[in-house]
């Protein structure tokens, strides 16, 4: 039985075991739980307490995607998260403190209060902030991949987006450009079957987003988005393809949005039974079961991990609440490079 050490956030726990699969499972669980818990606090606690500024979009139920994909990335690879990929930030070393502060509009946030919620990035960590315009990241990610190729780097770019994004012109233009130029780009679609209130059948007339791969001359594979291992292995294949100079590779992760579109949306348009069905496929529960089943962990190990993360999250929230709001004098700073 693996003994869990609680690493200082945001590093994942290390196991004393020698089974690399068990190691990976622990890392998956660490980041998935961290994401779940941070988002739960934001959406179900802080938001209701009126401590959050602006909207809240959570990736509840989809954690296996950013975690499974993110753990395949090398440090110098460039990540373009969508608004439901919080775990990518933790994998890149962003501290939950910074995330809470970001959601509260404090200077401790990644944008110092200039922008909010998931609109955060840091080029030093090769994390590019989304803009709200859904799908706009795709051409930009193609450009980052172009830069990597231009410089002869072995690194690649990963771009994340939802099923709704696939209807945007930017999706099409970005993928097509990347495909023609054979750019090192991994395209990760979280097909959570809704875009705000819009179900798939009003979004596209094909069965799968992956059906679009052939039209761009790129490989596209479908994977169970609630299975971190499956996502991880698909992302490895995709990353290797891209790293070998073979161009973009699309992964469609089938999943479900286990929340409203945002914190203010009760998702009454989603048939109840869908929530029930997908709850049973929860990626964290699944990972737990697997780990228990394989003997990679016992209940106490898991509880210890969770307790440790929760405690660190409590501290992070406190830290964020103590972070000041930006001074109004910052309003006009940084529109342009300071001269």
């Amino acid at each position: 039985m693996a003994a869990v050490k609680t690493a200082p956030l945001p590093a994942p726990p290390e196991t004393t075991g020698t089974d690399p699969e068990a190691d990976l499972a622990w890392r998956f669980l660490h980041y998935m739980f961290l994401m779940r818990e941070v988002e739960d606090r934001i959406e179900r606690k802080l938001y209701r307490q009126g401590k959050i500024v602006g909207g809240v979009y959570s990736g509840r139920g989809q954690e296996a995607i950013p975690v499974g994909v993110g753990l395949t990335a090398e440090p110098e690879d460039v990540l373009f998260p969508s608004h439901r990929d919080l775990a990518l930030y933790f994998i890149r070393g962003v501290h939950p403190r910074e995330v809470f502060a970001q959601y509260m509009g404090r200077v401790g946030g990644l944008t110092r209060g200039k922008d909010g919620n998931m609109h955060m990035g840091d080029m030093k960590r090769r994390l590019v902030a989304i803009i709200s315009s859904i799908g706009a990241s795709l051409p930009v990610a193609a450009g980052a991949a172009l830069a990597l190729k231009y410089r002869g780097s072995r690194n690649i770019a990963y771009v994340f987006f939802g099923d709704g994004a696939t209807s945007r012109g930017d999706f099409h233009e970005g993928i097509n450009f990347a495909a023609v130029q054979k750019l090192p780009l991994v395209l990760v679609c979280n097909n959570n079957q809704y875009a705000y209130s819009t179900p798939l059948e009003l979004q596209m007339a094909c069965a799968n987003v992956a059906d679009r791969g052939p039209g761009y001359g790129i490989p596209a594979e479908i994977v169970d988005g609630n299975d971190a291992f499956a996502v991880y292995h698909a992302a490895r294949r995709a990353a290797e393809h891209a790293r070998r100079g073979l161009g973009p590779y699309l992964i469609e992760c089938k999943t479900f949005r286990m929340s409203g579109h945002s914190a203010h949306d009760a998702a009454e348009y989603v048939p109840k039974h869908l929530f029930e069905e997908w709850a049973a496929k929860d990626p964290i529960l699944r990972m737990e079961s697997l780990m228990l089943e394989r003997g990679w962990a016992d209940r106490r190990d898991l509880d210890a991990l969770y307790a440790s993360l929760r405690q660190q999250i409590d501290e992070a929230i406190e830290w964020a609440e103590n972070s000041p709001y930006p001074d109004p004098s910052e309003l006009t700073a940084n529109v342009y490079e300071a001269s």
Partner: protein
Amino acid sequence: MLVTYLEAIRQGIWEEMERDPDVFLLGEDVGVYGGPFKISKGMLEHFGARRVIDTPLAEAAIAGAAIGAALMGLRPIAEIQYADFLSCAFDQIVNFAAKCRYRWGAAVPMVVRAPCGGGVHAGPFHSQCNEAWFVHTPGLKVVMPATPHDAKGLIKASIRDNDPVIYFEHKALYRRIKQEIPEGDYTVPIGPAAVVREGRDLSIITYGAMVWVAQEVADTLDQEGVSVEIVDVRTLLPLDEATILASVRKTSRVLVLHEATLTGGVGGEIAARIAEKAFDCLDAPVVRVAAPDTPVPFSPPLEEAFLPNAAKVLEKARWLLAY
């Protein structure tokens, strides 16, 4: 009938859809969800999926489809979920819709509805006031109501208009502003500005949410014995120059106010027209108050510093009165 700004828009659309079977609504989440602000709540149930169309997440498709339907004689109302995303449909609007009539005589009787404006802590992409882009596009009409009365009257006039109209609705007014409006059908014509407060000493030319800021300023100054006239421009293109100039000729001091960022905003156009055509009546410089030239910041203290408010306008107004 006492209604909110939001309810007024909703009523206007509803009544037009009842009146004219060629009027229909399309946009993201306008159907079963009733739109993010619930403007179209109940419409899908009442009018059916033929006339309340939930589209894919694709603004160029929404605008383009509206143009095509309008060319065929229908009267589409295209909802762009936030005005910030008008930029995703920009070519369709400024190059296709705006120029059909001029080029080949084809009418494009469409309305593009776009919730704009800040003050709700929604950050750089859900708060912009980008009306100036469209005001610089001949062939479009651009309106932005400030009151429930005008919101209903202008949405109806926009739907009945035979040219493409960009209808900006200010999201901070949706539930904040209530007003008695007439029962049933009426329109507010596209074009004329409204003198919403008469005064002698100073004109404030403004529109949208800033009309309420202007009223606040006028109330304050009134207590000091200063009489402020407020012109609510309402239609930004074509601009009702005559009403604006008449007010300036009367008061000889003018402050132009808008929420959009200063440089290149519609205020420049208004100020320039005054400086050219009412030059002789001016007793003081033409002053503008607008947001500073930055994206709309997210955090409350920054957004508050960004948005024009009564204090900022008062300061400039006092300067102007003392000039």
